[in-house]
């Protein structure tokens, strides 16, 4: 996936400024940065939940189309995991996971169900398949949401602060799943402040500030000896806690 000079405004507010970023197949990139720096907006643009004002976003060399059916199809190639889980409240976990494959990929129900059970097994909540989201803990809900995104067999997975709505003991179970995905060669962009995850799973860390990607470095390099003043400043703040 390649972003080339992507710009995005919310009215007067310039939220993304000349973003250049390429993520290779199987690569894991962690995006980090202060609140309001545009990390969520970046994810939402890659998934076209927001439109961009200039520049281009290509997946496998194909630019994201503007609107319509074509867009919906390409969107399915990018899986998104939200901070707030956003599981469909009126559907069971299993129905959440099979909805996309059945409606978008037109898989037969039985095939979709079998594959969904494999995925739920993989994220460790196969026993919750017939439960409704409200009956699950936050960590279990987020793992269900990861399974739902994986069920579309996306080329790229986006995670927007997947653990920041979770209690500490649940953070580990979600991060474990994500580390497993990274090991298996899933291409991932992960917005997170979990340095442990960045260190163990990411090839690169991209630091964002005020709508720009200010610095891109290997995790070890970035956390021990960041190049820019802004990154040093930011790290000292999050390490202070």
């Amino acid at each position, binding site marked *: 996936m390649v972003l080339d000079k992507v710009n995005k405004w919310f009215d007067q507010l310039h939220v993304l400024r000349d973003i250049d970023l390429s993520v290779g197949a199987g690569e894991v990139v962690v995006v980090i940065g202060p609140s309001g720096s545009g990390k969520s907006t970046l994810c939402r643009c890659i*998934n076209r*939940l927001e439109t961009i004002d200039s520049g281009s976003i290509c997946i496998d060399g194909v630019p994201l189309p503007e609107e319509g*059916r074509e867009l*919906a*199809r*390409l*969107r*399915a190639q*990018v*899986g*998104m995991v*939200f901070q*707030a889980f*956003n*599981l*469909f*409240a*009126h559907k069971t976990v299993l129905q959440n996971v099979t*909805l*996309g494959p059945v*409606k*978008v990929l037109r898989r037969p129900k039985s095939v979709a169900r079998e594959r969904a059970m494999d995925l739920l097994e993989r994220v460790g909540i196969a026993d919750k398949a017939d439960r*409704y989201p*409200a*009956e699950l803990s936050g960590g279990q809900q987020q793992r269900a*949401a990861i399974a*739902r*995104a994986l069920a*579309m067999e996306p080329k790229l997975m986006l995670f927007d602060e997947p653990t920041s709505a979770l209690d500490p003991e649940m953070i580990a179970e979600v991060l474990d799943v994500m580390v497993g995905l990274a090991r298996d060669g899933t291409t991932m962009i992960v917005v997170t402040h979990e340095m442990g995850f960045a260190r163990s799973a990411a090839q690169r860390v991209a630091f964002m500030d005020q709508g720009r990607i200010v610095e891109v470095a290997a995790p070890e390099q970035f956390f021990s000896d960041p190049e820019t003043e802004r990154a040093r400043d930011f790290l000292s703040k999050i390490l202070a806690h």
Partner: protein
Amino acid sequence: MEAVLDNLDFYASGVLSTVTLTVASWAGAFVLGVVVAAFRVGPVGPLRAAAATYVELVRNCPLAVLFVLFFFGLPDAGLTLPTYTTAVVVLSLYTGTYVAETVRSGINAVAAGQAEAARSLGLSFTQVLAGVVLPQALRTVVAPLGSLFIALIRNSSIAFTIGVVELTGTTSQIGNRTADYTAAFLAATTAYLLLTLPSGIAVDALERRVAVKR
């Protein structure tokens, strides 16, 4: 009292006529209302505008005026329908505006993240609406939709003004024949309450059954 007891079979057929008129009109109003609500939240500008215009125009007219307007207006426009069908059309159009607004409020009450998650899976606008947003929206508005249904039972009596012989029309004939309008309409009032009060209880039960846990 005799006026009533001698005419129980007439009352029964009046009640039946009111029930079928209500159910047929509700089916029309519900389908129309959901479609119009979908247009109002949809991405197509002209459909949004048309839906908003329909709702504002029809909802702000007195129902009795609409009945008379359609009763004379449809034949003048070259469309002659049985009176009963005209009544179903008017009641559907009128109640449909309220259903549309109620469903729209339900749609707006569904968390934005639900539609975003559905869009991010690659579902089309229609699939997002039909598969994710509407099922949740409708569950949250069962009670107000139930109130509309009960209002429709009551409003169906206005079909009497264009000559539909439903419960009110039947009662008027009985009153006329027996010259005891008070007794005739006390019985009609009872019959309407026997329709509306249990409907309210049924709506409450339905609401409890379909509630989504959050």
